[in-house]
């Protein structure tokens, strides 16, 4: 995310003030040209369409997001959007179609600002950001950027763990295939690895698949 922000700022500085659409020559915090990462982002907004809600929707539209509004709150929050903005309700965790830890989209909850803030509820939503009414262009943009960034980062980490788990398993069969090759072909460790790598490249499969095939065929041949 850090990178995206830096690139966005770089782009804005390079384009200069001349391209800004904001009227009055004000130095707007940022505008559409600097927030391209938001363009066409599919965003669901689940809020009452009062003044605050309208302001939020308008800001998201101004950011070139692809906004879908829904109200009243559906019993199941839709899962096909990149980001969901949703009013914090006591039963929001139950309305989320995913289990915590495996979210389908970034979630920004909106604190309506009345009553005591329920930190436990916030924890249970496992949200990626919180927005408070009344919204400002600055708060919408920063929350959107951070929520999306956290969501993507989490997803990358989950992917990395999955990959690590898989690699751990593959490593054992690669090692086994390597020692088989060393013995059968009377080659060095390095040559055995090279052989595996070459076979994988030629056949366009993973090294793990080559290793398993070698182990299997060794077994078949007795």
């Amino acid at each position, binding site marked *: 995310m850090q990178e995206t922000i830096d690139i966005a700022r770089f782009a804005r500085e390079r384009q200069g003030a001349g391209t800004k659409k904001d009227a009055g020559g004000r130095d707007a915090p940022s505008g559409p040209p600097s927030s391209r990462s938001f363009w066409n982002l599919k965003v669901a907004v689940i809020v009452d369409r009062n003044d605050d809600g309208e302001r939020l929707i308008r800001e998201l539209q101004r950011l070139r997001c692809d906004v879908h509004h829904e109200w009243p709150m559906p019993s199941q929050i839709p899962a096909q959007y990149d980001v969901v903005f949703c009013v914090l309700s006591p039963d929001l*965790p139950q309305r989320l179609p995913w*289990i*915590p*830890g495996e979210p389908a989209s970034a979630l920004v909850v909106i604190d309506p600002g009345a009553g005591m803030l329920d930190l436990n509820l916030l924890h*249970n939503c496992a949200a990626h950001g919180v927005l408070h009414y009344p919204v400002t262009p600055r708060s919408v943009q920063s929350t959107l950027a951070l929520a999306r960034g956290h969501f993507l980062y989490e997803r990358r980490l989950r992917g990395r763990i999955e990959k690590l788990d898989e690699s751990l398993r593959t490593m054992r069969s690669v090692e086994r295939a390597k020692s088989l090759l060393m013995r059968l072909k009377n080659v060095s460790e390095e040559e055995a690895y090279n052989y595996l790598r070459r076979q994988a490249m030629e056949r366009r499969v993973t090294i793990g698949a080559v290793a398993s095939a070698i182990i299997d065929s060794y077994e078949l041949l007795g």
Partner: protein
Amino acid sequence: MTRSSNTSEPWRVGVLFSRTGFMAVIEETQLRGTLTAIEEINAAGGVNGRPLEPVVYDPGSEASAFGRYAKKLMVEDGVSTIFGCYTSSSRKAVLPVVERLNGLLWYPTLYEGFEFSPNVIYTGATPNQNSVELCRILMERYGTRFYFIGADYIYPRESNRIMRELIRNSGGTVVGESYVRMGASREEFLPVMRDVKRAQPDVIFSTVVGDGTVYLYQAYADLGLDPKVMPIASLTTTEAEIRAMGYDVGEGHITAAPYFQGVGNERNSSFVRDYKKRYGDDESTNMCLEASYFQVNAFAKTLEQTNSMDTEILRASVMGSEFEAPQGDVAINPIWGHADLWTRIGRANRQGQFDLVYESPSCVLSDPYLLGYGRSLGQKNLELA
């Protein structure tokens, strides 16, 4: 820490075992082990004067339901500690929930290893505590030709991968491999057993779980095969499954487990006596029940010290701690959060109990990633590999 002063409010804990569906036979005993421990603790005055209050759901043997109920427990019931899960698929369904919301799952079942989560305490065996020794003894006593039968999900595929490595590298072969779907019917085991008969292995290694276990062993008996020369070996067939299939059907087959009802020590004698008093004389204890039972006691002992259900505090306190369990002295390994458990290998007898074939001299350090294990069973087999 400070003892709780004036509150007698219960400590709420979650419990997730199937009472219905194809996993009910074994998970029901895990539920009993959990609730028995809770009742005993409460009868003795609770933990720091406060009783344990179990919030129990039945996920009905469906993995995704485990994930949903884990969410319900943590979000709606305000529970952070959960005792539960038998299958690896159900554990993997609960994992993201406890990891994201920072809960603690106590998992009382053997599994295939190769996992580590800061939000799970594993109290069942991993391969270095059962498969390694089992494989060695099978090859010594019965022969080197293995046939694998498994249910089609994570645990059997992964266990077979490890078993295959051990067998091959010790000069043995896997002469056949069949998988049946989870919750398969009786009929689906007949073609598998016919294939076994054709392949004529020395040992059948079964990773079938749930009701399928009963069908498998019964199909074996129906074909008139002889466990003396070609036993079914398993990591999951306990006294509970043997009882369900019939003592005559189970007789002569082999299981590796940290615990059998027949373990001879004072702690276990009173555990078995109390269990039978509660549930009836013909009810047996088993490894999954025992793990379910001792992990609640381990939790309670930890809670007594922390006086807090906070996951970070509980976990820090339980790591490295030692407990007296019915199987013997055990510990929660401080590196892995997996229990250091006993290795035992038993052969089922006509009374539905296991006669010990092998017993480790003490508990075996857990090594879920098999870091300290080579791929063969011993030096003497190396030249055969």
